């Protein structure tokens, strides 16, 4: 997989009329490595959490190899540990992963991959590769940024997942070490930068109320799915308020 992505990243990129003021390759690689290493190491937290939730070593590693999108992985093991039905648990993880489709849309324009390369590049379409790629000024830099971030992160994330799971099996009671707090802390760290406007904060607040309020009354895993409705509900409420105000212009938010 990595070989093909690198091959597609190199030919014809310099010919695309990159401005002479384009970013040096070394600077792109440095940015990409920084993100790849920092986030790749947090696979350790996933390995520990997954093993602590009762998944086997093989199941934990399969998740990092095959799913490779952190929030969905944490959500799945959390839901399974809470005794959720496997399909309900998978649905929550799937909905979290849906944002990657929108990253792919943006990336496919920037990377201009051949049709054959797309199925191979797809596994690396995640938050971090998108963030690095979108920050680059030229197509060549976008391709280098995407490939280096994707490769570093994929290798490290899987390696640290394995080490974390082995470590958790070695220390036994992961809760005594506070490792059950790693999952929610990861979610909070992913969530925090998204809470920029009142719309996002309102969605988060309503989702917390729904998620906690329905927990005692609905089967495990279902309250999270219901909480997802906070997004359309808040959008609908704001749309109504905007139209009540009668102004023809939008909210000016993106």
């Amino acid at each position, binding site marked *: 997989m990595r070989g093909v992505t690198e091959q597609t990243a190199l030919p014809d990129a310099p010919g695309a009329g990159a401005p002479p003021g384009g970013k040096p390759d070394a600077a792109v690689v440095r940015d990409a490595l920084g993100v790849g290493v920092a986030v790749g190491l947090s696979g350790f937290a996933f390995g520990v959490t997954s093993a602590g939730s009762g998944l086997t070593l093989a199941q934990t590693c399969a998740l990092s190899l095959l799913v490779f999108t952190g*929030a969905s992985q944490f959500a799945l093991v959390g839901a399974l540990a809470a005794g959720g039905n496997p399909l309900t648990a998978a649905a929550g993880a799937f909905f979290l992963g849906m944002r990657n489709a929108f990253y792919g849309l943006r990336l496919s324009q920037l990377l201009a991959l051949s049709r054959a390369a797309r199925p191979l590049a797809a596994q690396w379409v995640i938050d971090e590769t998108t963030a690095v790629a979108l920050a680059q000024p030229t197509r060549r830099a976008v391709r280098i940024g995407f490939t280096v971030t994707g490769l570093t992160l994929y290798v490290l994330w899987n390696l640290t997942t394995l080490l974390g799971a082995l470590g958790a099996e070695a220390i036994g009671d992961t809760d005594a070490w506070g490792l059950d707090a790693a999952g929610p802390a990861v979610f909070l760290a992913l969530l925090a930068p998204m809470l920029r406007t009142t719309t996002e904060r309102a969605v988060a607040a309503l989702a917390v109320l729904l998620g906690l309020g329905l927990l005692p009354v609905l089967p495990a895993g279902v309250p999270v799915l219901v909480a997802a409705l906070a997004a359309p509900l808040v959008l609908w409420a704001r749309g109504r308020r905007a139209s009540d105000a009668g102004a023809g212009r939008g909210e000016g938010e993106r």
Partner: protein
Amino acid sequence: MTIWIAIGVTAVGCYAVKLLGLLVPAGALEQPLVRRLAALLPVALLAALTAQQTFADGQALVLDARAAGVAAAAVALLLRAPFLLVVAAAVVVTAGVRAMGG
């Protein structure tokens, strides 16, 4: 076995949506409402998951050492600490509170 089913369904679903974004012609999903919903859906899910994994014990709501740990993570985030430090703060504080019998 049920865990493997969940892993399989999640892996196929998550890969499919990643590939979908690369294959769909640009503009197909670019309606403003769809884009806004896609941006807000993770906010709702992550907020609900954070709250549940902090306060849930099975189907009951409890206040235990995890709440202190996640509060420490929130402080670390406000101080703009790096990702790993945020997670480490939560783990260390939770373990510390538990060791003190909390």
